[in-house]
């Protein structure tokens, strides 16, 4: 049975993270330094050391996940610990700073760390929610198959329209040429369909018109079907409508797939670069503190 990374090993790393947080809070409350709490007291140095070590170790997940031959714990265990210990950093770093913030390199490192954690939370939510949607939507097809399905339908439509009136052929070809799914971050993440089709407008002039989900083309083909008096022509139009409808389903599947994959991917495009920004700021933070001791 599938086990979520959050439930890995009876939530061992949740317990460890909670223990770490609990000990840190108790130490912070018990600790009563002469100055206001800050990173320069012995507890401040201790929490800072733990925090920095955690950040380096959390970053090492990027190395561990590429080390396929590694026997250093299971990757799922690493991810589970990565999530829980990463979340514990919110508390440890805040206590390390003694709730002091300002416009300086130290708070920059803190803010970057928080951004990394927030993007990580988005990633965890995405990974808990989307994979099920992804496989349900794909219905056993892989990415290439989904594209080929559209391609197949296009070929079938192409064969059909050779025996159909020229304006129908033109409309179907234009719909294929002006199919616009994806192509932009927002379009991927919102499943926006900017497809168009060239159809005669109300004034009879052929114009490019919005064809979201191929609806415009289907409507028009439906009108053509209702106007048709020739049985053979009606049958062919009906077949064409079936193909276009199937194409619409296939396109929607592609879009949904792209949207889910987009959400599964996009947090990482923030998580990783900001992590490296954090590493730069963290080094600057630690070194500058002792540079101007």
């Amino acid at each position, binding site marked *: 049975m599938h086990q979520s990374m959050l439930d890995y090993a009876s939530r061992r790393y949740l317990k460890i993270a909670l223990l770490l947080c609990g000990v840190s809070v108790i130490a912070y409350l018990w600790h009563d330094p*002469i*100055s*206001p709490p*800050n990173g*320069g007291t012995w507890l401040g140095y201790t929490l800072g050391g733990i925090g920095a070590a955690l950040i380096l170790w959390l970053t090492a997940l990027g190395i561990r996940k590429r080390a396929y031959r590694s026997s250093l714990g299971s990757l799922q265990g690493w991810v589970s610990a990565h999530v829980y210990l990463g979340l514990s950093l919110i508390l440890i770093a805040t206590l390390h700073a003694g709730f*002091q913030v*300002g*416009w*300086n*390199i130290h708070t*920059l490192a803190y803010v970057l760390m928080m951004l990394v954690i927030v993007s990580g939370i988005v990633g965890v939510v995405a990974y808990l929610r989307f994979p099920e949607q992804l496989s349900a939507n794909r219905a*056993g*097809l*892989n990415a*290439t*198959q989904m*594209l*080929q*399905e559209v*391609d*197949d339908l*296009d*070929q*079938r439509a192409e*064969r059909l329209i050779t025996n159909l009136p020229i304006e129908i052929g033109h409309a179907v070809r234009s719909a294929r040429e002006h199919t*616009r*799914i*994806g192509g932009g*971050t927002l379009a*991927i993440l919102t499943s926006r369909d900017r497809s168009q089709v060239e159809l005669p407008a109300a004034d009879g002039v052929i114009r490019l018109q919005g064809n979201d989900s191929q609806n415009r083309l289907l409507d028009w083909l439906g009108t053509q079907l209702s106007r048709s008096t020739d049985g053979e022509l009606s049958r062919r139009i009906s*077949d064409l409508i*079936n193909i276009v409808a199937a194409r619409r*389903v296939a396109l929607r*599947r*592609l879009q949904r*797939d*792209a949207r889910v*994959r*987009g959400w599964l*991917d*996009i947090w990482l*495009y923030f998580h*990783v*670069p*900001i*992590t*490296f*920004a*954090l*590493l*730069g*700021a963290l*080094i*600057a933070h630690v*070194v*500058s*503190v002792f*540079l*101007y*001791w």
Partner: protein
Amino acid sequence: MRILIQIISRGPGGGAETQEKIHAGDTVTFGRATDQVLQCNDPRVLLQHATIKISDERVGLTVNSPAQAAVNGRLCRDASLQIGDIVQLGPMLLRRLRTPAGYDAAFSLEPDPRSAVAVKDIEAPKLTLQALGWRKRVWAWVFFLACFGLGLLLPWSGLSGDGALLQSLRGTPLPADGQWSSGALHPAHAELELECEACHAKPFQRVRNESCLDCHSTHLTQHVAEGHPQVDSLMADRCTTCHIEHDEPSTLVQADTRLCTDCHANPAASGFDESVLAVTDFVTQHPEFQVSLLQASSQPITSAMAGMASPAPARLQRLRLDDPRLKESSNLEFPHKVHLDPKGIQAPTGDVVMGCADCHTPTMGGAQFSPINMEQHCASCHRLEFDPAQPERQLPHAEPAEAWRILLGHYSARFLEGYADPLATSAPNRRGTGERLSPQERAVRLGQARARALLVATDIFERRVCADCHTVTRRETDEGPQWDVLPVQLTQVFMPKARFDHASHRTADLACSSCHEAENSESATDVLMPRIESCRDCHGGEPGAAHSRHLVPGECVSCHVFHEETHPLWTPSAKALAQ
């Protein structure tokens, strides 16, 4: 059941090759999976794409969603196949053939020549972030180098050399070393906000005391005197142990009690003698207040000293307020109780009700009180007149020899003039102007005058005027009697080791008598300083401690200073800097 399947494949030249496969069973499966009866390794085919179920009644085709089949060109998922039907299954064409003898059904399967168009030729829509140009690695490097370079390397590189580079960097919008400051400096140090090197003299070296002494050497004092057993340990302390900067809220002077009690909780261990008692908290463990009492000089003001501005210096005696020896010895006879009689006291101008402020006038700011002196505070009642006939004539204060000379001169003149009666109750034996007295008569009159002066002086010195306030002793000399008056030396600052601001204690319901029991003091030897208990009515100890709840918190530095004015700098480097 026996089913015959002809699998036709076409070579590159178009030549067909047929393989026959006989399947035993009633179900023919078609798909990409290896367990399928008809396996087709084409990506357009699902793992389980379609199933043909053969029974006696019909040959039924079922296509698994989302795949579709075209039976004789018509799209469907379920169909009953007749002989001669052509089914398009992905890239393959399936025909139902006439059933040969000995079989229950027959099919042929061949590639659909029309689906030979390469899928790869068609441009796929951009459906992934990767395809849109999103990159992780390049941004990771850009961000890392930006934070590392601008946050550390750039300002650090400015530190090398004479710092001129850093100075010019501070003038640009680029981040300089100011970004390393973890919090604003105390307002007192605000001008150093952009001059990090004023305190952080050398990289990777903690702030040194010398940096502080650059500015603070002239007025800075030490906690103890040179030669104190704790000098070495105090020398090891750094200024920044107590004066911590860059914190928010800014607390340049740390009030924490522990900074003092580290040593003072166990004074013996720190090398103090037994007169120094342990302190841990103002409420729970603080010795009774100790006062510095002036021991007024016992050397009297005599004729030899007449005219001197100040008497011999008084000694200071440190005594606790619970010490039985506690006694002020100011050489003054003064009962507070008499002066504060609520019914009033007799004065030349009638009965006067006196208050504390009549004599104790606050200094500027109200923290302390001005010194008390005879002329300002006593003389309006305690007049030094001696001749009722001439009440405007007064003797000088604090000059007994001069007073005697004045008395002698006054009465000599009066007796020579014939005013024999000092109280002027009888008519003077007035003689005409220019009448000369014989030497004998003159000697007689001067003798009478001297006797009168002596009488008056004895009265004034020993009974009536001086003796009211002073201790006077009479001394017989060859030249006649002399009176010795002990000098009055009042303690001006009782608690020099503590800071107390009277002004901040002037509240509506706090009278002087709340702390100073003057109304019942009958002797000038009473020390009217309040005991520690009366302070504890309002003042607690360490902030946050249970016993200090609802009290004004009191750390050590609320009353005491660390840098004692009386202890000049003793560290050699500090001395050198001060010079």
